[in-house]
């Protein structure tokens, strides 16, 4: 399942180092991985395994030291800041552990925010935002502020925001990390629905095996390298081991 031209994510021999006073510290070593449209991938790994850095590079928030990364067919390494912003806006939808909503703006305005940077006109923005609100089941909360709704609801709003620009790929960084078990299941059910019904590619970082179990494919990182890449169903128990 790698090497095909129309992969959403195609990474080859990617390295990432951080410069410190004691010299460069490698964080990701020789990562090669491809994700095809419609896949649902869970990334697991212990702390310090490089999964957050990997996620940031996938999300075009950070750049690799060497190697190639093609997102939706475009060579990310060759893009400037504005072009990266454009990719984040149109190709990727982010869902964070801490929700990352703007506290001052209404739910509706939060969801419409990516559309502002796309240059969508005002009434169209509102129409799309409300469509997304309905999709995540929060149509009655459009005028609320983020602090007036529960954590699970805030994460739904964040998912609606990630969906509003109809992205190819959703990157979720421990989306259930701040939620209780029941709410986590609801959020994961929503992701599964988006993946199965709408065919949206999802890459999700988690340290819980029952969350990873919602995905079809597991990528396990340890010490900056991929130690397992295959169907969740075939993973060895230690690859699904919960990490903190």
């Amino acid at each position, binding site marked *: 399942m790698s090497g095909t031209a129309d992969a959403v994510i195609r990474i080859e021999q990617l390295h990432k180092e951080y410069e410190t006073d004691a010299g460069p510290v490698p964080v990701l070593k020789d990562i090669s991985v491809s994700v095809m449209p419609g896949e649902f991938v869970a990334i697991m790994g212990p702390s310090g395994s490089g999964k957050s850095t990997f996620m*940031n590079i996938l999300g075009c928030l950070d750049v690799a030291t060497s190697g190639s990364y093609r997102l939706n067919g475009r060579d990310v390494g060759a893009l400037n800041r*504005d072009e990266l*912003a454009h990719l*984040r806006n149109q190709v990727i939808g982010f869902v964070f552990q801490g929700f990352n909503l*703007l506290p*001052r703006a209404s739910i509706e305005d939060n969801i419409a925010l990516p559309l*502002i*940077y796309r240059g969508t006109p005002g009434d169209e923005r509102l129409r799309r935002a409300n469509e997304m609100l309905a999709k995540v089941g929060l149509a009655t909360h459009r005028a609320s502020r983020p602090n007036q709704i529960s954590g699970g609801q805030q994460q739904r709003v964040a998912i609606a925001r990630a969906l509003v620009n109809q992205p190819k790929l959703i990157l979720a960084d421990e989306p259930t990390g701040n939620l209780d078990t029941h709410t986590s299941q609801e959020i994961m059910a929503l992701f599964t629905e988006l993946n199965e019904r709408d065919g949206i590619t999802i890459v999700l970082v988690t340290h819980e095996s029952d969350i990873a179990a919602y995905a079809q494919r597991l990528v396990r990182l340890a010490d900056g390298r991929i130690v397992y890449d295959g169907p969740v169903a075939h993973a060895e128990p230690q690859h699904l081991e919960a990490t903190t």
Partner: protein
Amino acid sequence: MISAMLGEAWLAMGANRLRTFLTMLGMVIGVGAVILMLAVGQGAQQQVQASIASMGSNLFIVLSGSTTSGGLRMGGGAAPTLTLADAQAIEELPSVSAVAPSSSGTAQMVYGPNNWSTQVIGSTPSYLTVRDWRLAEGFPFTDSDIRSATRVALLGQTVVQNLFGDESAVGKTIRIKNSPYVVLGVLAQKGQSLDGRDQDDSVIVPVTTAQRKLFGSQFAGTVRMIMVQAESAESMPAVEKSMNELLRQRHRIRENADNDFSVRNLTAAANTAAETAQVMSLMLGAIASVSLLVGGIGIMNIMLVSVTERTREIGIRMAIGARGNDILLQFLLEAIIISIIGCLIGVALGVGGALLVNKISGMAVVITVSSIVTAFAVAAAVGIFFGWYPARKAAGMKPIDALRYQ
């Protein structure tokens, strides 16, 4: 896009109202002070210019010298050294456009039940030319009135008010020192002189009448003062020089002896006053501008704090697709909105303050559209200038660093 950003800027400003207000206050005070100071400064300048214009332009005053009598030194103008003939001789000099000899004194005058004491100036018809003084009603006296020393008078507005009230004065006969004088004309309003005297509180009569019939003189034909008007400001030094030479010659003053007269250049003094007023006005504006600058620095300060506080928000915006320019525009817009609203309030306060100053102290104030436009432009520029650096700082953040900021 812009309208959405304006809405966001509004929200951000509304989120911390007290801080926004205090930031704005810097601009309000700065702009208010500039407008108020310019209004007061320009008012003073205008007043000085009006006074100068009322005096007449390109003027010299030639005064007779002083005398000493029994050890008592009399002031300038006491010696009977200047004559009407001197005045006629000066008139012949090149570049001299008008000459008005005058001798004045104070006299009591009566009309009907009213009486009034005022300055009586004895002079020639050219006095009106030299002083740039028009008649509101009637006619001036002529050279034949000078020759025959007729009892005619031109009254200033204040005198007319005190003697006649609302009645018309032209053609009436008043008594000055118990002799009858026909009022030929009424002088136009002239207002205060530079030193605050009421120029309208005076009466003009032919110089010969003043000398022979009103005040008398031991030395017939002498005057205390001759006013000389040069054709232009450029010719004034030449006129002064030739006038000095002429009078020394006529008065037969030896090579090393002092003048028995003195020449004063009124225009030079007036110009100095005008320049002083202008410098004052500029200085007031400059001092007020400093507060505008301080206001601008206040904006920069708060915007820097705001950028740091909202680092995470900037990270979120970048993660969902905001480009550097979008972030730059957002913070710049906030700074500009604060400046412009502050400026609007400042203009209102400045104009209100100027009117209040005028009402309370009676000081002249001039509020010009150009000073308001200037204050406005400066405020917008200050907003952009001092908003630029914090906005650049925000726009230049790395998305990942901003997003991780706690």
